[in-house]
């Protein structure tokens, strides 16, 4: 039994122009103690996937799934009150902007105590000791002084550490991190990623890491799922995915990452994937990637590719996966 199992998750938003489908049957599993990367361009549904797990999508959104379970408990069948008992307790979230996701009017100590007060029934006073301990763990110097400070008195990196500490105080089973390092300096990014990895080793919590940065994925993830236009198009352990990407889109993403070292004699321009992410109102027929795909043939316009498993633990949704892999190996 996986920690988190998601099967055929769809999210539809009610809008003035009718229903808008943001996720078209997303599948995802996260095992205990695993760091899973969720990769894709802006607007592909990464964040909506995360918000669906905690049922925090915008109120106009309707979440449906064949299966959405945390430790075999179906999250979609819980009452709102029961769901609140899970949020911040079994599943925590870290957001992209540490500047805006901490409340400017409340001290760090009080904000971090809140989950303990809510879920563990601790008093504000006794929560404080645990908060100071966790702040120390995430590398905030002088935590007993910091708990009395307000968010604006902390630097961006420190605030993100505080957010991580806030997500960890109740020792959740699953930590969802929505681009936790995007707003930070590169040096601070590396520190935060190392921290997350260390915390995973210490607490055995699973981490679902959303990012559009393949460098981050290579650095910390055990497994990666690539999303495109509201669908999971490829999923594999990190090593095999980087060695043999099976989807043309994944391959394109990798080619568009700048590299410092180029093999001698190799002439290489930084490639970009042509075109843009489809507007969710006008998702192309068949495989949604076909207008931007170099491998596309007639079938891609007509039929949505089935998800196949060409190698163990490596799933892909492409009509020509075999050819893509072949080319990567060659």
């Amino acid at each position, binding site marked *: 039994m996986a920690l988190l199992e998601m099967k055929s998750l769809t999210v539809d938003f009610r809008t003035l122009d009718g229903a808008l489908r943001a996720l078209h049957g997303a599948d995802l599993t996260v095992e205990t103690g695993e760091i899973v990367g969720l990769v894709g361009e802006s607007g592909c549904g990464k964040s909506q996937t995360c918000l669906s797990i905690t049922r925090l999508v915008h109120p106009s959104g309707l979440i449906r799934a064949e299966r959405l379970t945390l430790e075999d408990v179906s999250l979609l069948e819980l009452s709102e009150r029961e769901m609140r008992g899970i949020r911040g307790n079994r599943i925590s979230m870290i*957001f992209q*902007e540490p500047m805006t996701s901490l*409340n400017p009017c409340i001290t760090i100590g009080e904000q971090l105590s809140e989950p303990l007060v*809510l879920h563990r029934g601790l008093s504000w006073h006794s929560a404080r000791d645990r908060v100071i301990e966790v702040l120390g763990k995430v590398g905030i110097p002088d935590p007993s002084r910091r708990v009395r400070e307000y968010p604006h008195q902390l630097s961006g990196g420190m605030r993100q550490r505080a957010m991580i500490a806030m997500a960890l105080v109740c020792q959740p089973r699953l930590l969802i991190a929505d681009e936790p390092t995007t707003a930070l300096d590169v040096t601070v990014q590396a520190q935060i990623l190392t921290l997350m990895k260390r915390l995973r080793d210490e607490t055995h919590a699973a981490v679902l890491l959303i990012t559009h940065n393949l460098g981050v994925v290579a650095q910390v993830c055990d497994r990666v799922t690539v999303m495109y236009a509201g669908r999971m198009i490829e999923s594999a352990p990190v090593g095999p995915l980087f060695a043999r990407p099976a989807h043309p889109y994944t391959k394109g993403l990798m080619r568009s990452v700048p590299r410092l070292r180029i093999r001698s004699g190799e002439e290489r321009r930084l490639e970009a994937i042509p075109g843009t992410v489809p507007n969710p109102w006008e998702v192309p027929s068949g495989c949604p990637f076909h207008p931007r795909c170099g491998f596309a043939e007639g079938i891609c316009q007509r039929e949505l590719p089935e998800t196949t498993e060409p190698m163990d633990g490596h799933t892909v949704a492409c009509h020509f996966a075999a050819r893509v892999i072949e080319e990567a190996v060659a």
Partner: protein
Amino acid sequence: MTVERSPADRPKRRKRSYWRDVWARLRRNRLAMVALCYIVILIVAALLAPLLAPQDPIVQNLSQVREPPSPAHPFGTDLYGRDILSRVLYGSRIALMVGVIATAVAITIGLLLGGIAGYYGGVVDQCVIFIYSIVATFPELLFILALTNALPPSGEPRLFKVYLAIGLASWVGICRLTRNLFRSFREQEYVLAAKALGAGPLRIIFRHMLPNMIGFVVVAIAGGIAGAIAAEAGISFLGFGVTPPNPSWGVMVSEGRSYLQSAWWMIVCPAVATLLAVFSFNLLADGLRDAFDPRHQTA
């Protein structure tokens, strides 16, 4: 050569809490500070009225009617021979009471309804808008009069009904403000983060969102007190509010209005008292508005 600076030489990082910052900015505003001083004096006067007042404010003394200001009666006496200074002093109690009670009622209702409407949106929001639109339909004065008569009689009948009625008639402004602010707060990431921690709606409204508008609330309180004092004086002047012989400033002005030519002090003293009180609270409200806005720091 580099000189190691000792911690003491290092320029000190200015570190002040939010409230100290507000206070520092308010202190630079002379007008607001004068107003604040006057308000403090008013509060002290109201608290110490029994000690400060030379005479009982209600007992009549028909041997000294309508005497002009003199050392014995600095503000003169009224048509029943009562010392006007004493009545004005006791009147400050009524003015402050109406200010505090009516504003407390208005702010409580306004924050509660506005907060719920702004947070939930949708049908709840529509209902709240419907309610406050109805209240806003009536001219405020008429609404207060109607409420004063409609409210069930209670312990200290007239006085508290008037306070309550003024409060019930003046919550629309703060409600609308709260609703609009909360609608913008709702989309803030810290609200989503609070939800992700498992916080429920009431906790988010009162613990996470409300502190973010504390400045607006303080300004609304000061302005609300000014409005309530003026409203009370107004309806008491018309004879529908606080009733004689209670020393309400409005009542006193009303009693003196036939004697403006012969005994101007009867009307001028309570009128000036009302004016100064309303004026001070309004000035303080404006000063606070600027003080809560960090962009006014250098002004």
